[in-house]
């Protein structure tokens, strides 16, 4: 059993009571809500005649269903319009702040809460969205919940939870040029599997993790859930504090100093006990691309699609299903796979540094003929910052569309989607069958820089070759 880890400390600080049945009632410090998983929770709350327990610890935005071309109201899709109108009404009825379209603060919930300074070390963060693990980048314990649990948090600001085990993922060395946090996490999931993290929180630590920026740490923790770990986190350090200082909801003046002192004390101690530990070498990781239908089916861009013989026996049925669905041949290189659509964005990779990395590849080059390529900033703030440095122009000149913020083609609950058997190079987080809106559509997950490279080449290619040469 783990002891002395950040997870243990934060868990203990937030324990309210032991519940019948043995689970723990855990106080939730920050509850993020959005239009997709909250309407039924508010309806249940109304049926029960209950108020929202702490509306000031609840924050809303709209992201999944918003169009990224025109965000004029009412939306063309009446169902999407109804969902946003319902969220607006619920937030108004219960006194919950809503960072809506055009507020300057709207965006993907896992992008805006960090950039507003809402997410802080030592908090428990819950949201009706599995990628809530993102917020663990700050040393918070953050996890996705279902709608019944959204109702519970609205009603009681707490959840009935079981404690997880803690696995430390220690990463030595440093990532090589052209290799990003996305490649690191795809590699970790490739090795540990999509169910390897079930029952665990993942603590990411070691020299390679210390060297990551906050935005990179968010990418890493975002995909902990794709490895089966409901939450992933990084211990708070000087990088964390520098990111938070001065943000709208970050503590100010003397409170800032006290906060930093408290945050420092939350990090896993030198004598912390972990349930498990796994080690990786960052320097050995190549740009990584998924070839299959789970995020664990990834390979280095210089590798070939694994054959059945190269696949663990119990993973073979899934590999066979993936060959059929993806129409990729085992033993053939992934580089050179032609793509139709290139998507840069999402809660995984829709932040400013992601767009900068992609723009560095796109600058002075042009999207290949016949390829649809588009960039969707993760938030209004990301869009404004990118536009201020001219990234929108770089992308437009290179033949990419520059869109309005939202979840976009990560999950296709909005007009952005694949059609038929189109294949996408995507900076998002899931390559599940049908994920991007077509029941036969195919997804290759990779870093934003790799997506930009694929857009320019018209096929999967090694971005390291592009960043080492001038256009």
């Amino acid at each position, binding site marked *: 059993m783990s002891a002395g880890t950040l997870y243990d400390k934060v868990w203990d600080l937030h324990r309210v009571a032991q519940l*019948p049945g043995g689970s723990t*009632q855990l106080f939730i410090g920050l509850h993020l809500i959005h239009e997709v998983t909250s309407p039924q929770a508010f309806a249940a709350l109304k049926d029960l005649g209950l108020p929202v327990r702490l509306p000031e610890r609840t924050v809303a935005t709209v992201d999944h269903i918003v169009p990224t071309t025109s965000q004029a109201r009412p939306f063309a*899709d009446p169902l999407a319009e109804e969902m946003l109108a319902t969220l607006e009404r619920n937030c108004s009825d219960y006194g919950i702040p809503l960072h809506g379209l055009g507020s300057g603060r709207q965006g993907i919930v896992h992008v805006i809460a960090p950039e507003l300074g809402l997410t802080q070390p030592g908090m428990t963060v819950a949201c*009706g969205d599995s990628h809530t693990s993102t917020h663990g980048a700050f040393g918070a314990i953050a996890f996705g919940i279902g709608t019944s649990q959204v109702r519970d948090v609205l009603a009681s600001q707490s959840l009935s939870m079981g404690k997880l085990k803690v696995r430390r993922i220690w990463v030595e060395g440093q990532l090589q040029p052209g290799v990003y946090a996305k490649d690191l996490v795809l590699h970790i999931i490739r090795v540990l599997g999509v169910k390897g993290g*079930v029952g665990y929180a993942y603590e990411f630590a070691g020299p390679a993790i210390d060297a990551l920026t906050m935005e990179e740490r968010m990418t890493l923790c975002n995909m902990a859930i794709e490895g089966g770990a409901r939450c992933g986190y990084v211990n708070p350090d000087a990088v964390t504090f520098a990111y938070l200082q001065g943000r709208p909801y970050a503590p100010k003046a003397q409170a800032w100093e006290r906060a930093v002192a408290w945050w420092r004390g939350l990090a896993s101690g030198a004598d912390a006990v972990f349930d498990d530990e796994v080690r990786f070498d960052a320097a050995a990781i190549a740009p990584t691309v998924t070839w299959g239908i789970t995020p664990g089916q990834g390979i280095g861009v210089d590798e070939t699609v694994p054959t059945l013989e190269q696949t663990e026996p119990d993973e073979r049925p899934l590999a066979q299903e993936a060959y059929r669905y993806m129409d990729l041949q085992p033993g053939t290189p992934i580089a050179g796979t032609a793509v139709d659509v290139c998507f840069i964005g999402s809660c995984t990779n829709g932040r400013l540094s992601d767009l900068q990395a992609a723009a560095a590849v796109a600058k002075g080059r042009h999207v290949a003929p016949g390829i649809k390529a588009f960039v969707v900033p993760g938030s209004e703030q990301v869009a404004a910052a990118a536009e201020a440095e001219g990234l929108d122009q770089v992308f437009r000149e290179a033949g990419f569309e520059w869109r309005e913020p939202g979840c976009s083609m990560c999950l296709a609950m909005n007009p952005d989607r694949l059609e038929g058997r189109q294949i996408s190079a995507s900076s998002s987080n899931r390559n599940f069958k049908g994920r991007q809106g077509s029941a036969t559509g195919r997804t290759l997950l990779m870093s934003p820089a790799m997506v930009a490279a694929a857009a320019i080449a018209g096929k999967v290619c090694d971005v390291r070759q592009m960043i080492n040469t001038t256009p």
Partner: protein
Amino acid sequence: MTAAMTTSSFPFGPISAVRGRAVVITGDDIDTDRIIPARFLKCVTFDGLGEQVFADDRAELSGEHPFDRAELQGATVLVVNRNFGCGSSREHAPQALMRWGIRAVVGESFAEIFYGNCLALGIPCFTASHASVLSLQESLIADPGQELSLSLAKATLEASRGQLWQLELQSGPQQMLASGQWDATSQLLANDGELARTAASLPYINGF
């Protein structure tokens, strides 16, 4: 597609047993996008989701999908393999299964969020060994008409032909279901004094 069941028959109160026929869905890592594709999440109620469960898989198999087969209509038990319900936290997935008629799931393992979402709806997720799940699936595919009886207290599955499978059910969920306290809201509200004390002790709540 099957009509959704009426809300009056959804799980309610203490749950000690689930009876009925079983649907078998084979394959590891079946994600919640498969169970309910995202386009069906454009809704403000869960009504009607039962008709959309596994929509894309069913369309692909044009009537041959287990959820469409005539002899399995009205089934109440779902038998799956490993890491069922991974991916998105959408409660729409267990809601869709429940509204189709599923009242218990048996599998080798489950994704955590899916497991908790099922529990919040009063749907027990039993686990069993790899070999047991495979033999159970084989038996059910060979003879889909078998009437099953699942006991929560004993964690057993008994088939009408007399075969018995030993399963596992975590003691916490088992107690919550048996006592009818699987819906956590009232328990959470009962400790409001302790909750206020916990909140007051947290530096970030009280301005550091």
